[in-house]
């Protein structure tokens, strides 16, 4: 069976000279320190772009409306919900996913990840990439957060399995060891 492309509605362009990126747009950005150049529909999200067009699977789709945090990635140095960003929005910007965090670390994973591993912080693991990215960003901004700050910083990432305690404890242990 041959795959047919969805026909997009043709619309009359306005006379403005603005760079128009209609239904298909070309997006160039830095993904985990690598240049990416891709044609993408303008009505898909960054999460779709990463997962389905670029094969980067660490961000997960848990709710698709910004409630669960499973799709957390870092956009220009800020942790954000990739399900609430349109793909063309990242044109010219920097995106870091968990894969990028690992690439940057010495060895196979970051020190923080090792703490999560040794603390058995996760159960089903589905929320793990989002939580690790959020925690990495939190520690980037505030290397010595209090317990309250950790709890507040991770409160946007839902986990149904663990009761959160082993996740919070891993971050606390990590900070203790660093200082």
């Amino acid at each position, binding site marked *: 069976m041959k795959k047919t492309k969805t026909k997009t509605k043709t619309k009359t362009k306005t006379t403005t000279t603005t760079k128009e990126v209609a239904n298909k747009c070309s997006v160039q950005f830095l993904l985990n320190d690598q240049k990416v150049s891709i044609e993408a529909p303008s009505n898909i999200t960054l999460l779709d772009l990463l997962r389905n067009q670029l*094969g980067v699977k660490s961000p997960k789709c848990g709710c698709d409306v910004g409630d669960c945090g499973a799709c957390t990635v870092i956009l220009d140095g800020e942790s954000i919900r990739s399900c609430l960003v349109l793909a063309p929005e990242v044109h010219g910007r920097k995106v870091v996913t968990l894969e990028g965090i690992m690439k940057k670390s010495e060895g196979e994973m970051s020190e923080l990840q090792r703490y999560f591993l040794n603390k058995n912080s996760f159960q*089903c693991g589905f929320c*793990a990439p989002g939580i690790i990215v959020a925690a990495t960003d939190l520690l980037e901004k505030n290397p010595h957060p209090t317990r309250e700050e950790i709890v507040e910083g991770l409160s946007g990432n839902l986990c*149904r399995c663990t*009761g959160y305690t082993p996740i919070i404890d891993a971050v606390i242990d990590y900070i203790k060891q660093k200082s």
Partner: protein
Amino acid sequence: MEFSFIGKPAVRLDGKEKVTAAARYVDDLDFGANLLYAAVVESPHAYATIKSIDTSKAEKAPGVVKVITGKDFPYKFGMYMQDRYIFAQEKVRFVGEQVAAVIACDAISAERAAKLVKVNYDVLKPVLKVEEALTIEGCNHSTSEPILIHPELKNYEHVPWFFPRPESNIAHIRKIRTGDMDKGWAEADHIFTDTYTVPRYAHCAIEVHAAVGLYDFSGRLTLWTASQSPHTQRHLFAEALAPLGVAHKDVRVITPFVGGGFGGKAGVSMEILAAALATTVRGNPVKVLWNRAQEFYNTYQRQGVLAQIKVGVKNDGTIIALEQNLYWDAGAYVEYGANVVNAAGLSASGPYRIPNLKIDSYCVYTNLPPGGPYRGFGYSEFLFGLESHFAEIAKKLKIDQIEFRRKNCIIEGDRLAYGGKMNPNGLQEAIERVASEIKWGEEEKTTTKAHAKNIRTGKGISLFWKAPAMPPNASSSAFIKFNEDGSINILVSAMEIGQGFLTVMAQIAAEILSIPIEKIRVETPDTDRNPYEWQTVASHITWGTGSAVLKAAEDMREQIFCLIERALGKERKDLYLKAEGVRSHSDETFHLLYKDFVISGIPMEDGTFRGGPILGRGSFMPEYTSAKSNPETGQGGKPNVHYTVGAAGIVIEVDTDTGKVTIPKVVMAVDAGRVLNPDLVKGQITGGVLQGLATALYEDMRFDDKGRLLNPSFTDYKIPTTLDIPQEIVPVMLEVPGHDGPFGARGIGEHTMIPIAPMLANAIEDALGIRIKSLPLTAEKIALHFQLHSHKLIANDNHSSL
């Protein structure tokens, strides 16, 4: 017993995969460029007759490959009762039910085209509450005859231990009768009756349901599903699609990691669509991916229950009789949910010694989404009423809550509701440990500084028990194979849904074979390669699959000893396994490493070899259970293998103005039989307690008067965040070993959330003097109840001063 691996914490086998995102879930798998996507056309009505379906516009829409309706699949399916069709046939019975599906080249085209399918309905009046579905004494508001949701009920196939009532909305009644109720009531000094209600709940695993089906031109049907039940799915797919010529051997279910289950991914729900749709587009994989809203309204939901409880007690607090009517809102299809009703009915006495019992557990059809398994399998639901009621009784009799439970709790050898004897257990110890941990009887100081005048403290306790709810012949099996380096792969078909079972299976094999856990791999199943497992439900995996793994490891040990006896002439009873090899009691110098013979065999002097790859095999079925019993009394069988028991306690602070509850401490004591991995047991306690607290405090599914779910999102179905955890959870692990199970272990996974709701309700009563009889115990409910209660008190005071 000295163990090397059992009872020790370990880094999870799947830990690395999960923290590095190497773990793949169904939606992460790549299927290539010819993957097709399906979108479902859903019923907007809770109850309606389908007059016609016009698919012509959708078929012509861009990217559309095929449009499928009920006409294409007039086949039924179901786990315990075949009351469900793959697509709605002449009727739809809940809002969101699948009526048709569009298969297209991409997800957006499929969704767009699904909106073009025109379905013409004759809308019927829906039945949205159990009170509307049948006549319940004291509950019915209308005198008209209930509307029938399944007029064909009498023709439905079901397991022999279900007793449907044709021409009614009762799909099953589980009855229990023991002792003599008349005598019980006569002997009682007091009789207390009350009604408690529990709403529906959603599992809320963070991963939504996903399934991909591929029916290739050789006739092979492969499904990749986010499932707790790969073999059960294979069986149900093969059964449902048998008319198309599909046979068990041709169906293959592959289940990669699952992003949380909690019962929601047990059995078959939306996965049947991927299986069926795949057969219509041979050669192309088809993906069905639920969105979060569908995850709420078209998978299993935890059933609501209305519980009428009547208890007879003696002056000294001895419970003498219990009558309980449980009316379960089981939804539009009860193929799985009816067994929740059954399991709850069997155990609705709770972990108490009650000589006279009358239990009626009704499985009631309603036009709400299908009910089904949810962590706790009915026990959380009935225990809310029962333990709340017992707390009220103790209070009214002025008997200490702990004392009341000490006096009445079930002990080893007591008669169970359906006959048979209670297994050895640590319930009494659990009660004492909880009482001491929460300093029962001592006044608690508030920890909250602000508005201290509005803060009241309270303590609450609840006992719990649960048996695995399984068919009597539910079974597990395991293969273990050696690799050249002496490492092993364990092949089982239980699912890693977060509980850490891969690690525990490795610990069991490690203990028998004396191999470090780092040299063991256990992977998620593929029904082609991994041996049979019933399902990952009922907290039975550690016990059941663990038993199979234990047997497989012992089988390998046996083969190893046999081989060495045969090849080297060593006496087998002189041999033992140690440090990745075989040793001899009588010859300290003998140490044959696995890596030197388990694949390559043992070399003989003449250049030949003895042995060959060592392959362990184990299967386990509890051959002592039976579901056969008298339908009118529930007596005669032995439906449950054993009960896991425990007790829990909580300390709370409530703001009387706002109704907000803060939780300084929760104690959870559970008798695991044998704790195979304390870290994982602790994980189940921490997670289960929080899930329990959330269902007790703020979660619930709300439906409007048309049967539409009002909160199918995390925006309005609130599940806890890091900010919502108790200040302290104290795990207490007890070990009274069972007669079977690996090293005496029993399951504890579901149990940790079962006592939470009544424990909390009891603590609220302790703090404020108000008894809330419906879940959830929201801040709103607490505050408004308390306002009403304190106004009443003031009014009463005024009255008495007059």
